[in-house]
């Protein structure tokens, strides 16, 4: 599998000469719809879910902004400095969050502040099990195709739309590995959406450089996933929404 993948990479490296669109930054808007997110919690009764959507449905969204820097070999996904329009300029502290992918070296370097600690997830890349579907849609000026993947730990069904004409494997959040750049994500029927609003083609070597000093606990991807899994199970048992404190 790894070798096949390597071969595929070789192909990509070979054919990238086709597009000039191979280096730049994608601006994403990440919106959380809290009512929908809460409705996925198994411990809530039918009446509670109904009341929640009756009272808060339609005005439960909160938008954040994120950036995806990319070139032929690498990508880095980070929170943007831009403030939410509803925030009236107030700035809350953003937790450290930087998702680094190196497609030639097949490695990930993620800096994630979670549960009060900063973790550095360093591991080799394992391709998500994408399913390719037959739908087309336009996102930020690009015709995209639909793909799906499941996250059994967070109990999420994720729909991704990848561009047919941007030959990059990069994507927002921790996702990657489609034949085109992922420009939109939809997690659990719109509980969280991550939608590209603008793509700027420019040199981003500086932004892609790894953080100079990596402060935090180094763990593997499996350890990271196990930690999330344990925390979610524990909080669900306590009937507390785990996604108050960890990224959905």
């Amino acid at each position, binding site marked *: 599998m790894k*070798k*096949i993948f390597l*071969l*595929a990479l070789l*192909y*990509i490296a070979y*054919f990238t000469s*086709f597009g000039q669109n191979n280096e730049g930054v994608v601006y994403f808007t990440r919106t959380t719809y809290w009512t929908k997110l809460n409705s996925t919690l198994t*411990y809530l*009764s*039918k*009446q*509670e879910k*109904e*009341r*929640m959507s*009756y*009272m808060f*449905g*339609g*005005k439960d969204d909160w938008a954040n902004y994120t950036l995806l820097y990319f070139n032929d070999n690498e990508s880095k996904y980070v929170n943007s*400095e831009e403030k939410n*329009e509803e925030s*009236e*300029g*107030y*700035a*809350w*502290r*953003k937790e450290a969050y930087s998702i680094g992918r190196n497609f030639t070296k097949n490695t990930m370097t993620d800096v994630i502040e*979670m*549960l*009060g600690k900063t973790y550095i997830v360093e591991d080799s890349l394992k*391709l998500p*099990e*994408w*399913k*390719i*579907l*037959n*739908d*087309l*849609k*336009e996102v930020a000026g690009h*015709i995209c195709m639909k*793909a799906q993947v499941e996250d059994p730990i967070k109990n999420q069904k994720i729909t991704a739309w990848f561009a*047919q*004409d941007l*030959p990059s494997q990069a994507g927002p959040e921790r996702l990657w*590995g*489609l*034949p085109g750049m992922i420009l939109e994500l939809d997690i659990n029927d719109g509980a969280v959406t991550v939608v590209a609003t603008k793509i700027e083609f420019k040199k981003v070597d500086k932004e892609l450089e790894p953080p100079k000093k990596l402060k935090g606990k180094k763990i593997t991807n499996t350890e990271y996933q196990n930690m999330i899994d344990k*925390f979610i199970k*524990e909080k669900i*048992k*306590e*009937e507390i*929404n785990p996604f*108050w404190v*960890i990224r959905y």
Partner: protein
Amino acid sequence: MNKSLVLLIALFFTCNNLFAQNPARVTIRGVVQDTSAMTLTGATVMLLQPKDSSLVNFARANDKGSFEFRNVKNASYLLKISYVGFLPYQQKLKEFPSEVNDLGPIKIKPIAKELLEVVVKTAKAPLSIKGDTVEYNAASFKVPPGSSVEDLLRRLPGIEVDASGNIKAQGKDVKRVLVDGKTFFGDDPKAATKNLGAETISKVQVYNGKSDQALLTGADDGKKEKTINLELKDEFKKGAFGKITAAVGTSDRGVLRGNYNRFNKKEQFSVLGYANNINETGVNWSDYGEFKGNNSFNSNDNGDFGFGNGSRFYYMEGDYLNNFDGKGFTNNFGTGVNYNYTHQKTKFSSSYFYNQTKLNLDQYQSTKTFLQNSNFTTLDTNNTVSFRNSHSVAARLEQMLDSSNTIIAKTNLRFSGSNSNVNQVQQYLNNSEDVQNRINMNNGSNLNAYNFNFTAIYRHKFKKKGRTFAASSTLSTSSTDGTDNIRSLTRFFNATNVNDQIRAISQLNQNANTTTMIKAGVNYLEPLSKKVYWESFYNFNNSGQNVGRDAFNGNLESQRYDSLSTYYQNQITYNRVGSGLRYSNDGINLSFGLAVLQYDLDGKVYPQKGKPLTANISKQYQALTPNFSANIEFKNNAYMGFNYTLNVEAPSITDLQPVVQNNNPFYITSGNQDLLPAKNHELSFDISKFDPATFASIGIWSSYRYYLSQIVYSQTVDANFVTRTRPENMSGGKSFNLGMYSSFPIIKTKWTMNLSGNINTSNTPTIVNTIVNQTNNKNYTINAGFSITPSEKLIMNIEGNLGFNNISYTIENNQNQNIRTKGLSTSVKWNFAKKTFFETSFDYNSYRNDRFGFDQEIPILNASVRRLFMKENRMEVRLAAFDIFNKRQSIVQTGYLNTVSNQQALTLARYFMLSLTYNLKGHSDKLKKNGGFF
């Protein structure tokens, strides 16, 4: 290294091939072309698993349109090719017999231009392709309400509908129209398109279907007919829920309570009603939320602009909530309807609510008042019977004009009435507890009032990000009309003169007050940089009040008491302008601002309405008020906040009115026209830390207030214990508060401990018989508890608290008061059998004040059993016992100014109740761990 490995593997497979039927690894290549054999450079070519479309490998076509998968596992695949502007191409590949396989030129078809342009680019609708079926979301195409499917089809790209309703798709006649895959109203395609409403359709699919003949015979004749399938919307956004409860209890207790809600995507409609005699004067929070629906919380509703508090917070108008204060017996009734409409940029809500409460209260109060080196005690026994009701109508409209302009308009009209009758006996005891005076009072009152309120708020977002402007204005008027019937008989036991031994008052007061208020404000926020903001605001408020009171002899209504009558006109104008700078970046928010405010007061006093002016008071107050705040969010979920502000508040109208209130002849109040505004420095500080891994938290907060000028009520007490009070300005009052809380798990998911403590100290000056008294109040409370959840089926809570309140008076320093309270509260919820629950709570409180010789213990035990019945647990039957020991009563101990008092009131004690609740959506058959949080 990898290269040699690949080579090795390749070698291995070559050898293997000699023996195997099919090679284990193969190379697949081909060329991507369009229908006119032009090469499509850069086309994406994917190998998918046929069973679930999982991505196995992908490649891109080179400048000659050719692609190659080298050395992939030999298996059956789904080859998929995608290219901008072309229909995704799919081909099934079987296991290959040979090692290298050239698929040759593969021709892919372009997507009809109108589909791409109109559906994908203009309507932003996803296009689904299933073989030769193209499907898109009809909801993306806007048609006026009430349109038929035919109108909708006319708008769809690639579809033509002629005048008589015949349909063509991609130039070919549509022979069949299906609804959810089934024939609708026979064979006429027009039957569906003319009769169905466009709003019922979610998706339109166009494809080449088999001909009727082929469907009939089962033999494919190769003829394809254009078919349209209309997929209906699933109606999950439409529904209803509600519940009804009926209960009967011992001592004639009864409850009837219900609510019903219907909703669809745009509308919410709800009705609510309750009637009870168990002291529920309104509904609880969750019923309130269900009643108001998406109008429960509204952002942007605050038009009172100022420092820091910004303009965005959510609030609830709690008109219908249960606000019973724990005293007396009440009969309650209320009912209302609410309607909300939300669609695109419009949000409209309206409601009507009626409620009434009849109160029967028996109360006993003993108050000790300290004078210089002496004190007296007042014993007060009082029976009140009162009735109050109100009708209220409210509406709110939020209209987004476009992405940068929003208008909010809301209005409220309320009519209310009340009448009450108070029978009261007061006894005044001197230092040595001998009764000096006794007064019997019978006061009746009757009041009718109306309030009207209208507010409009406009908000604008400028093109420059972060620059905003908002303006608001409010008009409010209210009027009250009432009569007080005051009768009292006083005996002075010390009087030597017969004439002085008894005094009777009989008085009839007619009160008519009207208030009109106009309020306006503007707010402007300018981002000076990404981190620095400049905020400015202006507030205006003008309120005019007319107060009229005609006092008559209660036995001879033609006799007017001029000394007790008045007519008073009061105008207060408030102007404030403020400006501040704020630094906001990465969790640090610091702001500093300054405001100038001015109050203009103008009062006119007449002996009677229509008579010439007797006094004119005109005043102006100005103040400069600074404001500083810091909110810092540290790494590791620690927070710190600091705030300083100078508060300035104008005296209240009643405190300024030079009118004597003598409803109680032993407590006579009058206003003070010379009052200045209250002014205080306020400092607050808080710090907290939260551990997201364990949800442990700790926090400390503190606040300090120092009065430059405080409005206090000076007292003059004469030999007969008649107290005359008058508001005065005094400086030097202060208060300090320090609190702490902590919550942490002892055993994860099972035991949590909560701790909290509070220290309050205050120093209030007051003038008693021209001498300044300082009342020092020190209040300490401490609270500790556990939440225990041994299993899904058992939840327990235990909590204990201690309170100490020390009050000392400088004018009578041997009379320091020590009030002690102790409390213990436990609860158990146990799901002991399937769908059956046992719930109990025990609260023990003790109240002690040694100086009064007061020591009371109140244990309250409640218990209930409930069971769920019927499909989806729709029915709940509950048998409950309230206050099993029959001990409930209300006790309030307070120290205020130069007094300390102890108040006891009767209220609903032991009763048993059987209740039935039917819930349309069913009751939850599990215990709830976190009381309503999600």
